[in-house]
């Protein structure tokens, strides 16, 4: 292996355009030289941005480094370039599994297994994920916002017809305002769409409301749904998109589990 690493290093030094970075990066990764592997893979991906294998390699290295977000981005890039690629599908399947998102994990692993039916690691992983999925209790999953720390009464998911799906909002006096707010927000997505279409603004992403007593953000985490998050007036406006993103992840996960 050391001889090969030396050979690939020499090859890359002599010809920086060489694809030997793929083998060199992978060899360094397998030997645990993750910093070196990352540097090699990054240079390769920069030189060959349309090469799916380069992004797949980056995904594996980031995953080994425990950098889940970066691995996710790299594998997503790889699949954008080459949708039927086993490595990134498998990688994403494992990532989702680690996050506890079993439904998505199963989907990625199933797609990978269909492309590589003889891969024993895939069949074992898929069996494990399916076993855990089957072990989940019957009935709808718990409300995604009920247990989230500090989120009770401040985050609500509703459908486009103004009906509450999960979570809820409370008035400052503690009274449940969920249904009243949901009803008044029915059709707001359609209105936002109409406004952005008329103004050539593309697709609406979020509506931020900044008030004297509270801030709100509305997003559409999945088709035909609306997510409302409220926070106190001391919350910096710049944090609202981050809070909404996290709430959106929970909403999508919950919707998938509900089916």
């Amino acid at each position: 292996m050391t001889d090969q690493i030396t050979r690939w290093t020499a090859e890359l030094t002599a010809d920086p355009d060489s694809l030997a970075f793929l083998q060199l990066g992978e060899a360094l990764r397998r030997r645990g030289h993750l910093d070196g592997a990352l540097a090699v893979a990054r240079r390769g991906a920069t030189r060959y941005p349309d090469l799916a294998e380069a992004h797949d390699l980056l995904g594996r290295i980031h995953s080994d480094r425990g950098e889940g977000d970066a691995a996710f981005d790299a594998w997503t890039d790889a699949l954008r370039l080459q949708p039927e690629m086993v490595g990134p599908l498998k990688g994403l399947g494992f990532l989702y599994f680690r996050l506890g998102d079993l439904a998505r994990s199963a989907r990625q692993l199933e797609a990978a297994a269909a492309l590589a039916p003889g891969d024993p690691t895939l069949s074992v992983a898929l069996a494990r994920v399916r076993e855990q999925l089957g072990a989940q209790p019957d009935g709808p999953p718990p409300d995604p916002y009920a247990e989230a720390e500090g989120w009770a009464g401040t985050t609500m998911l509703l459908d486009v017809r103004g009906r509450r799906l999960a979570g809820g909002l409370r008035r400052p006096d503690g009274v449940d305002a969920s249904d009243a707010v949901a009803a008044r927000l029915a059709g707001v997505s359609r209105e936002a769409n109409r406004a952005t279409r008329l103004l050539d603004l593309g697709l609406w992403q979020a509506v931020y409301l900044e008030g004297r007593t509270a801030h709100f953000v509305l997003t559409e985490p999945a088709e035909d749904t609306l997510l409302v998050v409220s926070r106190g007036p001391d919350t910096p406006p710049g944090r609202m998109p981050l809070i909404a993103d996290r709430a959106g992840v929970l909403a999508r996960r919950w919707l998938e589990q509900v089916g």
Partner: protein
Amino acid sequence: MSTFLVEVLETICRTDGVRGALLVSAEDGLVVAEAAMEGLDAAPVAALAASLASRLTLATEAAGQSQPALIHLEATEGALFIATGEAGLLLVAVTEPDVNAGLVRLALLDAAGRLA
């Protein structure tokens, strides 16, 4: 059209990335004043902004909160900002996507304060 109102709107339009600004009657969505509305038809923008602001204000009131001082509709290719002023007026700005949202926010809130 009042020189003062036009001056308020032109101040907003001086912020980089702002495509246009207008002053709208919140109650009926009619244009009170406008500035630099490049390629935009002010009347429907005003009507939509007023309708959106009204719906969102009803929602925040249902939640037991004050009416929003600022509404920011973020889209993939731009944004619509609405500041609620005194006397039933809305200040509306349409922007490019890469605008400095912080500056537009300050400009609108400042302008809304001047209308009080």
